[in-house]
Each structure stands twice: as C-alpha cells, then as structure tokens.
C-alpha cells in the first residue's frame, strides 16, 4: 500500500471540506477500499474517514420511510430493519461475514456500485432516494454502469431513504468462493407498484426487470411470473456461469422472492 494522509472529521461539512483537496478520497468501512489499496490499484493522497460522523449513522423511521445514514454498517441495518423491512434486513444479514458487516457501510456499498453488490437491488426495487451532501438522487438515476454512479468528485452519500414496502424479499444465489451474489433478486411490493431488481447479472450492473414488475402488479404471486423468462442478452458470462445460466437464475430467484416476500 502507498502511504497517504489520514483525516477523521466529525461532521459532514468538515468531511466535504477535507474532500475538496486534490487526491482526497472518502473512506467508509474500508471493506472494499482497503483491499484495493493493498493491491495498489488506487493511490489517494489523503483518506477522509467518514466513520466518526455521528449524523451519518443510524436508522430511523418517518411515516412509511426508513431513513438510513450513509455511514450505517450492514450489521446495524440487519438489526434495525428486522421486523419492519424484511427484505432489507435479510439482504444486510447475508453480506460477507459478521466482522465485515461490523465495518462495511451502506454508503460505501452504493458509492462503489460493484456489479454484484447487494444494496443497489434494494434501492432500485423500492424506488429509494440517495441523499448526498448537496442533493437527492432517485435510485433509477444513481447507478450508472459498472463501478460508476451519479456522484460527483468529493460528493458523499449521507443517507438513503427507502419507502418501506408492504412485502419484500431478497434472494441471493451465492458464488461460493466470494459469497457475493452470482445473481441476486430483490422484490418489493408497495400497493400495486411492484419493483423487481437484479444484481450480479447485468453487464451494466444492477437493473429492473420491468416485464416481471408488470406481471406482478396485478397478481402478486409466484404463478404470475412462472411463464416469464429473462433474455440472456446483456448478461454477464464468466467462469462462474454463462449468460443463459444467469438468465435462468433471474427467473427462479424472482419466483422464490415473491413466494417468500413478507
């Protein structure tokens, strides 16, 4: 790892100011960034840790919205969402292992936008809003292809607002070595708006399966999607699975998610 300066501000304003200098980068839980630095794939001059910012941590509910601070760990999300937002609690509880979940944050995961990251699917399926230090961005406008988002240089995710669905579930088909999803499907039902979002499969990252959303809007049951199949066009093919295999998994996992949604 190359060396860098380390700063740990305690407010969002201080963090934004610290990030405005050349070569500065935000540090969330470090569960993705530290391995990248060890491989010398990245060479920041300064890391600005966001872990000391109390206003970016925690989960609160406001009417039908669950507001999660960008610096909230996966472990905390798993605990706090349990009971009221089953799909999100399950998603968070399946990321990595307990020690990874005690450090890794939702903001870091969304900013990184790994094509196999779990949280982007929950944001897309529920129509969540990503709050930054300067604006609000709808999930549909946030994810912009592999490892790319709408975030500007130095902009930080301070929170995510999820409309809490009536029923939701996340189905993760794990790639057994990395335990990231080979394919993950998040299903969320809000009245007659149903969101179905797929991670791990798209060549351009997370996407919504609108055909399934339409079929489920009138009839929220596994039967409503059993006749559908997703095309393999635009899906990832690699040594872990072909595009056709991933396309098949999307259908199977969507059905399972609908059947399990609570």
């Amino acid at each position: 790892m190359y060396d860098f300066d380390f700063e740990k501000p305690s407010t969002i304003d201080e963090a934004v100011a610290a990030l405005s200098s050349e070569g500065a980068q935000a540090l969330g839980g470090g569960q993705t960034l530290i391995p990248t630095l060890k491989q010398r794939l990245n060479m920041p001059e300064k890391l600005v840790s966001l872990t000391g910012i109390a206003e970016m941590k925690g989960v609160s509910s406001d009417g039908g919205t669950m507001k999660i601070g960008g610096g909230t760990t996966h472990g905390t999300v798993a605990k706090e969402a349990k009971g009221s937002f089953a799909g999100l609690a399950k998603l968070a509880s399946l990321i990595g292992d307990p020690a990874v979940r005690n450090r890794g944050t939702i903001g870091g995961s969304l900013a990184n936008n790994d094509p196999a990251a779990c949280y982007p699917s929950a944001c897309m399926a529920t129509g969540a809003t990503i709050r930054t230090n300067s604006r609000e961005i709808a999930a549909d406008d946030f994810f912009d292809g592999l490892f790319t988002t709408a975030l500007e240089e130095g902009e930080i995710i301070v929170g995510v607002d999820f409309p809490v669905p009536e029923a939701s579930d996340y189905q993760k088909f794990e790639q057994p070595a990395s335990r990231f999803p080979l394919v993950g499907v998040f299903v969320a039902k809000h009245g007659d708006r149903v969101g179905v979002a797929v991670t791990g499969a798209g060549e351009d990252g997370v996407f919504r399966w609108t055909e399934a959303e339409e079929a489920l809007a009138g009839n929220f049951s596994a039967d409503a999607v059993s006749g559908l199949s997703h095309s393999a066009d635009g899906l990832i093919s690699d040594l872990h699975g072909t595009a056709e295999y991933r396309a098949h998994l999307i259908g199977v996992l969507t059905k399972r998610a609908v059947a399990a949604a609570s």
Partner: protein
Amino acid sequence: MATVTMTVNGKSRTGEAEGRTLLVSFLREELNLTGTHVGCDTSQCGACVVHVNGEAVKACTMFAQEADGAEVSTIEGQANADGSLNTIQQAFQDHHGLQCGFCTPGMVMSAAALLKDNPKPSEQEIRNYLQGNICRCTGYHNIVKAIMAASGQDVSAVAAE
C-alpha cells in the same frame, strides 16, 4: 506519522502509525502483541479478528488510526486474571478445537463475539457466524463443538467425526 492511543485489553497503549498502518500491524509490530495473526491479508480468513468497541472486526482491514481512542481486545486479553484459560479457550483445548493453532486467535475472538450476542447458539448459528473464519486443519467440527460446550450446551451427542 501520527500518535495513536487506544485501550488494549484494559491498558492504555500509545504508538506511532502512518496513514496506511493497519490495526493488525500496529498491534503486532508497534505493541508486540503477536497473538493476532495475519493469514490472508485479504479479509477472507479471520485469523486477525479482534474486538473494537466490543465488535468483532478484521484487524487486517481497518487502519490503526481508525481505532484511535477505541477499546480494543485481543487474544492476549482473554485469559482469566490468574492466567488460566477462559471458558472458550478451555473448551477449545478440551474438545480439540485446534491443531496447528494458526486460526485459533481469530476463532476464539469470533466465538466470544457470538456468545455475547447469542449465549446459546445452535450448531447452524455457529457455522453461519464463523463464515469469515477459515481453518485449514480441523474441518471445523471440533471448533463448533467447543463453542457449543463453552456456551454450556451438552455436546456428548455430537459425534467426534
């Protein structure tokens, strides 16, 4: 370089750390606490698990400066005050929960974190909790058995496969 101070196993400890100094390097090289191991250095194996403010973390994937002011506990702080092994450590010995012992510090620290949250875990809960702790020797069976025994559960029916 920055001066970093943390409470390690109940004692205030101070040392120097660069921005890039990992918590595990600080513990091992600056404080000479070499009980915390580095197996993979890629956040996979869990040999480096310590507790920071009561939570299990991989010390190879956290910077030392992040732990400035924190309460840290490591394997060196686990034994009882008289030097005898604590319940979890003793159970690992009694049930042959280790062979080479390389993974053991991380296993014991993960087990301690689990039992704090869940004092009577099932076998499946233990196996799930240890997903990020890799052991090349034991096949996990006796590790799981040791943790069940440490939580006061009867393990006589668990086959010694």
